[in-house]
């Protein structure tokens, strides 16, 4: 069968490349060296995969080449860092966000009410825009008035770099100055609620002509909106009231737990950002593909500037959670059990006489998370109804809509999922790679290369490509340290680090020229 042959061919090529790499690795290196390099490659591959997989699902389903994906990865890292190092800032930010969203959720209530109003046609077109401007003004004023405890990138003593150092020494709780709570802050919260209400009202007005729902569905939507609004507003107020207690509680937590919370916060923040981006900015441009690319370009640019403005231009570190940070007694651990009892940062693996030092966070935890996500997303795609809709929509989203499925909502969901994965990758990369304003662009390049190698819209292709990118990068780095014996040079050639990305890019170009559809891609 030709299809089976084609599948076999791509797998054979991958196997050949992998075998060659492995062969070369064993030739020039000690066992210890290549095991460590292999693990590092897997770690880099795992993080690349988190970005590449979301990117490829979005590209496949919506044909959106989301060049902001790297920046969203970076924002995920920075948001995760903030939730991890400065939980007080996180707690301070929750009430205003909750109240704004609570007001915004009231949308479905207005549409019915608006139907009954008889406006002059001119006013009908104008007032939603006026409402939107009012909402923005309210948001601007109220958000400015709500006090949030935050760092200042401009002053060194209060900069993220110093906070990261304080965190490692366990000094964050002592150096906090709680933000003032009282009447003005409460008033600002009410302002934010009103801003949300105004925004939802004007959006309902703008959407009025888009068609109405039947009575029952609308009633159910209204009920859900009310319940959601009440819950969120209540939650926001509760957090506002118990702000200090919650902060103390979070700061008292073990850093491993806090890191888990940071992962969840960053992933959710990424997902909501993705949903917001798709529904407001990308959706109007589905008819104009080149403009989408340019828009995401612009968003990448703005996102980078935003990161520079809030967190500063200088890079800083994200301290490792306690489970992966220990260096004291019993470390480096000789076994997995030893790692868990002593919480070691490194673990020793023995090969004959050699022992390899393996970092528990970089070379074990990251890989495990990568594998979990790989399997989870695969299960989502293959075993759930949403996955079925995504796979069908990749081929023909119009037909999916004609079956009675709200494809637009699926688009938003998938965009949220893809960006959420990238943000997860960002937090995960924080402790191993550190944070800098260039991390997004670098990783996007890596992910693009991985996808170009694997096939742009193929999920297994994203996994295989990411793995190959990781392998190539790490083995070239390793060879760079050892030195490559080139025929016409006396001393071994030791390439400088920038040559590593150059060689992976060249590999991408070559593979694309030989197989424009990539290893797993489908011929168009």
């Amino acid at each position, binding site marked *: 069968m030709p299809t089976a042959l084609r599948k076999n061919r791509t797998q054979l090529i991958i196997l050949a490349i992998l075998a060659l790499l492995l062969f070369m690795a064993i030739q020039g290196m000690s066992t210890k060296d290549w095991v460590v390099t292999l693990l590092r490659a897997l770690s880099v591959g795992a993080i690349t995969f988190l970005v590449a997989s979301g990117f490829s699902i979005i590209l496949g389903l919506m044909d959106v*080449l989301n060049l902001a994906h790297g920046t969203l990865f970076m924002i995920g890292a920075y948001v995760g860092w903030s939730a991890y190092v400065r939980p007080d800032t996180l707690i301070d930010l929750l009430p205003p966000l909750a109240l704004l969203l609570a007001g915004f959720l009231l949308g479905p209530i207005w549409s019915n009410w608006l139907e009954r109003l008889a406006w002059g046609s001119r006013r009908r077109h104008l007032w939603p825009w006026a409402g939107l401007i009012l909402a923005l003004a309210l948001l601007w004023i109220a958000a400015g008035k709500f006090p949030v405890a935050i760092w200042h990138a401009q002053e060194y003593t209060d900069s993220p770099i110093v906070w990261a150092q304080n965190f490692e020494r366990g000094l964050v709780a002592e150096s906090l100055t709680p933000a003032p709570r009282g009447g003005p802050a409460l008033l600002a919260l009410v302002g934010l609620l009103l801003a949300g209400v105004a925004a939802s009202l004007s959006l309902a007005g703008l959407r009025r002509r888009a068609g109405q729902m039947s009575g029952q569905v609308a009633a159910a939507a209204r009920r859900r909106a009310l319940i959601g609004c009440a819950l969120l507003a209540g939650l926001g107020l509760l957090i506002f009231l118990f702000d200090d207690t919650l902060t103390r509680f979070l700061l008292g937590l073990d850093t491993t737990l806090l890191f888990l919370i940071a992962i969840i916060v960053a992933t959710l923040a990424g997902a909501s950002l993705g949903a917001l981006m798709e529904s407001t900015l990308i959706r*109007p441009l589905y008819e104009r593909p080149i403009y989408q690319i340019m828009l995401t370009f612009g*968003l990448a640019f703005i996102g980078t*500037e935003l990161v520079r*403005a809030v967190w500063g231009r200088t890079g800083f570190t994200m301290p490792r959670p306690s489970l992966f940070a220990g260096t004291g007694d019993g470390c480096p651990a000789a076994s997995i059990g030893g790692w868990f009892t002593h919480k070691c940062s490194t673990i020793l693996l023995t090969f004959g006489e050699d022992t390899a030092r393996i970092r528990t966070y970089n070379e074990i935890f990251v890989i495990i998370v990568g594998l979990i996500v790989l399997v989870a997303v695969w299960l989502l795609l293959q075993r759930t109804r949403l996955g079925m809709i995504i796979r069908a929509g990749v081929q023909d989203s119009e037909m999916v809509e004609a079956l009675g499925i709200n494809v637009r909502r699926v688009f938003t969901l998938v965009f949220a999922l893809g960006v959420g994965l990238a943000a997860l990758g960002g937090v995960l990369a924080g402790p191993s790679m550190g944070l800098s304003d260039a991390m997004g662009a670098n990783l996007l390049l890596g992910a693009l290369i991985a996808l*170009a190698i694997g096939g742009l819209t193929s999920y297994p292709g994203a996994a295989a490509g990411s793995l190959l990118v990781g392998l190539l990068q790490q083995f070239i780095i390793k060879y760079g340290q050892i030195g490559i014996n080139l025929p016409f040079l006396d001393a071994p050639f030791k*390439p400088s680090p920038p040559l590593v990305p150059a060689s992976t890019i060249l590999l991408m170009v070559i593979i694309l020229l030989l197989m*424009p559809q990539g290893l797993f891609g489908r011929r168009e």
Partner: protein
Amino acid sequence: MPTSSSPRTWLRSQLGLILIVLALAALPFVIGLLNGQSISDVLANAKGNAKFIQGLMIEVFILAIFAISYDLILGITGLLSFGHAMFFAVGSYLTGVALKSFGWSLGQTILAVLAAGVIQALLFGIVLPRVKGITFALVTLGLASVFDILIKTRELGEYTGSDVGLQGIPRPPILDPTDQRLRFYFVALAFTLLVFLLYKRFVDSPTGRVCIAIRENENRARMLGYNTFYFKLAALTLSSLTAAMAGLLNALYKPIVSPEIAGLGFTVDGLLMLLIGGMGTLSGAMVGAGIFRLLDFYFDRWFGEASSFLIGGLYVLLVLFVPYGFVGAWRARALDFRRGRARLLHLFGGRGGD
């Protein structure tokens, strides 16, 4: 397009262009007079606002040439290339290296830059028949990134100055940007005009028409019997040559050839210029380059740190709300106006044409 034989109608149809060129030629003197300098001061390249504005305008001209060359492959031929900065940077770096490290004369350097332009176009040309659309974008981005990385490496630092950029290029005395700025200004202006006229001629030629047809529907162009590859290659070659020449001017003018011009960021700048002016309009690219440079300059002056943020926001707003750029929007308006007038004339029984 009907070419009229009468010189008067030709003059009328080109009136806008002629006026703009005259205004640009007069600009240094007008600025000088406004700042209390005499014409001979301006001619002697005396320090002052006139000289400064000349410098800014030279940068605008260089960017305009870069933008129009990008417009030819992106807006006219419809090739989604993300590697355009490389075309420009190769010209700049080659000029710098040839003048500084190899000690070549200006003439030799120009010849080398032109040859490099052809070679680059051929390099992209190898890629052309194999990959399309997004894959072509990725391959061009990849090639340009490799070049970007190479010029920043330690290994080539001796020639390219790696991260810092290429400094201390010996300038040929006849075209020194400080002592002979006015001459440089007019050379740049003349070259820009030349490129613009050449491009207009190209787009109106049969070859250019086929390029537009490729953008609209490549399969149809192929079914009409055109080997689209040669037409795309022709557009690429012309574009690459022009961009490399713009790079040469850049290397002569700027004190440092910064590695930034090889990065993706510079390609995006080009995209922004096209977006401001309007893609596929040629004149839009030039207008866009002007607005871009001036915005960049004044935003930096007024808003400092926040300026790049604002430019990003502007960019997004343009994509969403002014997709055809200022020139494109203006043309659409003019078209609507003409159509409206024709309908009106038709209504009153006149022969308004269609």
